[in-house]
């Protein structure tokens, strides 16, 4: 899922400072799973801001929607939003921008720093696993993504910085993606796949290629 982290309170304070009434909106999807912007976090942030701005008269309320990236779920907030000076969105960047698109005349602030597509490894730890490159090759690398899990996104790795299965960029926290690929293919008896030279990647389907769209013609009129 999309993994995000709440911004430091100091930064959030600065954002809402100029406003008298702010509606905090959480999202029930990805940011709930990574404990950054779900109901619990929205309720908590609301209390934090109430206490931070104690005795200033500023009003803070909170709500949470199913998925903030879909207009159908954001639309019902209309009345609440109109009753406030600003919205503090606890969704990922897509959610924030959906609120902006839906309610263009009210300032909408991002309470989170959206980071990556990843998965939980243990409670409280989420790691990046997918780079959204637009041309998945997981079937060629034992199900381990070299773009997202190799610090240099090598396709013919590992580089010389792989030591004891760790990546020299951050050995404490980062495994060498290519060691993982090597281990998987060895287990599967398909190590010969690594003898082939993988040609240069077509990055045009990735974020490097420009602003992307996905279209399903069969569901459009």
């Amino acid at each position: 899922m999309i993994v995000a982290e709440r911004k430091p309170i100091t930064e959030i304070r600065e954002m809402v400072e100029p406003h008298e009434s702010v509606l905090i909106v959480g999202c029930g999807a990805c940011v709930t799973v990574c404990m950054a912007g779900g109901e619990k976090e929205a309720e908590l942030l609301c209390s934090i801001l109430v206490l931070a701005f104690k005795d200033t008269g500023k009003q803070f309320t909170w709500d949470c929607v199913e998925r903030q990236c879909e207009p159908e779920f954001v639309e019902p907030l209309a009345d609440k939003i109109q009753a406030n000076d600003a919205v503090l969105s606890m969704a990922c960047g897509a959610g924030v921008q959906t609120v902006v698109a839906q309610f263009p005349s009210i300032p909408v602030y991002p309470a989170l720093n959206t980071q990556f597509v990843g998965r939980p490894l243990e409670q409280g730890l989420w790691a990046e696993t997918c780079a959204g490159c637009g041309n998945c090759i997981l079937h060629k690398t034992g199900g381990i993504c070299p773009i997202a899990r190799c610090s240099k996104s090598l396709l013919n790795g590992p580089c010389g910085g792989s030591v004891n299965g760790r990546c020299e960029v951050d050995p404490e926290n980062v495994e060498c993606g290519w060691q993982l690929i090597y281990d998987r293919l060895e287990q599967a008896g398909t190590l010969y796949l690594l003898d082939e030279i993988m040609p240069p990647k077509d990055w045009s389907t990735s974020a490097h290629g420009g602003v992307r769209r996905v279209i399903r013609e069969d569901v459009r009129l």
Partner: protein
Amino acid sequence: MGTELKIVAFCCEHSGSLAARMACAGESETSAGTEIVSVPCSGSVQAADILKAFRSGADGVVIVGCHDGSCKHLVGNRRVQRRVEHLAGTLKEIGWNPERVAFFPVSAVEGQLFRDRLAEVVDRLRGLEAGR
């Protein structure tokens, strides 16, 4: 002479609540002004619960759980301590004194310990600047 300080004490029903009852039986002056909230495990106390207490006017919040290794839910007491540590940082960031929140462990029969710990908390709170 009671205290004007309002304290909310989230007490684990397996340890804290029982110790609190024992302590109250001895009519301690520190027990006046302290609201005991019984919870199934100290680990069930969320940061939002603590802040809610401050929003309703509490001067201090204590969480009373089991001793290390005795938690019936295994690590609930450890989880809430982590939460309190983290919350201390947040409180500092918004200009609130993190010393207003404390965790201390007791067993079900340590009524005196409960009284003593609570008294320490009250003392500490008295020394703090009012309001935040």
